């Protein structure tokens, strides 16, 4: 399982974000994209997810052009973006039911167990708009417990989470990588994953300004 991007060029509002940028993500790797605000972290993740066409370059999944193996790629990839796709008027349980349908997750654990894991037990039937920002974030992240996709792409997963929440997610990432999965994430948080080195990719160094 490798995701590879070669010769990436991307500009936004007449500013070059990447030029001849290359990145390869192998099995059991944690890649942390770092860079200042506006350096193109989210843009890069969206390109990797196939959610942006505003680039030139090659995107390869298992050595094949991503465009041709999109279905296979989307089955093995889980993306939690800035906006996690949590519907404010649905309850956490209803949100997760829909997301697990989209992910085709094969009941690694039940939705109630996932909610318990993220500390939302007892809130499963409260509409998400009356939850706090951190709790809403937790609803989006509960998918990580449900999904069996080997590749996770996470955009600022720790925003609004408390310290305990962050260390739980770090442990989850560690377990995922230990089981052979890979994670690409952006965060300004000092990430510490037990028994695993994190490969940093600094966008401030690759950009031409």
């Amino acid at each position, binding site marked *: 399982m490798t995701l590879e991007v070669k010769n990436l060029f991307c500009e936004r509002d007449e500013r070059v974000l990447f030029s001849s940028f290359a990145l390869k993500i192998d099995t059991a790797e944690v890649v942390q994209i770092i860079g200042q605000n506006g350096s193109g972290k989210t843009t890069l993740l969206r390109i990797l997810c196939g*959610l942006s066409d505003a680039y030139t370059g090659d995107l390869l999944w298992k050595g094949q052009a991503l465009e041709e193996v999109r279905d296979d790629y989307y089955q093995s990839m889980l993306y939690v973006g800035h906006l*996690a*796709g949590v*519907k404010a*008027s*649905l309850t956490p349980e*209803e949100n997760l039911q829909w997301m697990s349908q989209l992910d*085709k997750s094969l009941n690694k654990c039940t939705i109630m167990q996932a909610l318990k894991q993220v500390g939302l037990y007892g809130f499963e039937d409260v509409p998400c708009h009356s939850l706090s920002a951190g709790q809403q974030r937790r609803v989006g992240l509960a998918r990580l417990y449900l999904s069996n996709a080997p590749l996770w792409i996470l955009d600022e997963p720790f925003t609004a989470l408390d310290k305990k929440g962050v260390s739980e997610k770090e442990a989850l990432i560690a377990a995922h990588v230990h089981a052979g999965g890979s994670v690409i994430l952006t965060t300004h948080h000092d990430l510490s994953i037990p028994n695993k080195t994190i490969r940093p990719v600094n966008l401030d160094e690759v950009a031409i300004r």
Partner: protein
Amino acid sequence: MNFFMSALKRDLLLVFRHRNDIINPLAFFLMVAVLFPLGVSPDPTFLSEVAPGVIWVAALLACLLSVDGIFRTDYEDGSLEQMLVSSESLYLVVLAKVLTHWLVSGFCLAIISPLVAMMFFLPEQGYFSLVVSLLLGTPTLSLMGAIGAALTVALRKGGVLISLLVLPLYIPVLIFGAGTVQAGAMGLGIQGYLALLAAILVLSLMLAPFAISAALKISVRS
């Protein structure tokens, strides 16, 4: 099929939690029907003559008003991105969304249309043709409106643009829809009109979801 049902269930649940979305098109439809005779003429012969056209135009505009929001919240909270990066088919998600929109707009309009027809002194023999033409015509309006909604979802103010894009596509449905009611009210055969409305519906049902999916991809990825 299972996936389609759960997509439909989610959309209906969302509509149920925002009941305004159901009431708005219906209220608009009823308001036009109530105000038109007051503004123009309460004369029964005049009203029964213009009834098919006015009721159909009111129904069309009620659909157009509500179609703008069909993908809006999904775009704003990131749900649409999740649908695009899913290996499940976008076609079914889109179909469920359009069906939900039709159920809360066109279907409800068709159900209350006899009431409006009564206000317009439409001859009783025209009621059946009114309901059937709305039931066959409004799904097409939802499908075509959704193409416009998908194209403009990323724009902050898509409202006017949507009308410009979609209204030309609505015209055939309006002509045949109002024609059905006119023929029905005069006691003529309506099978020809209904066959045309059904043909337009089948064509748009086959092709529109592809156009909507492609338009959503363009809107999100650009």
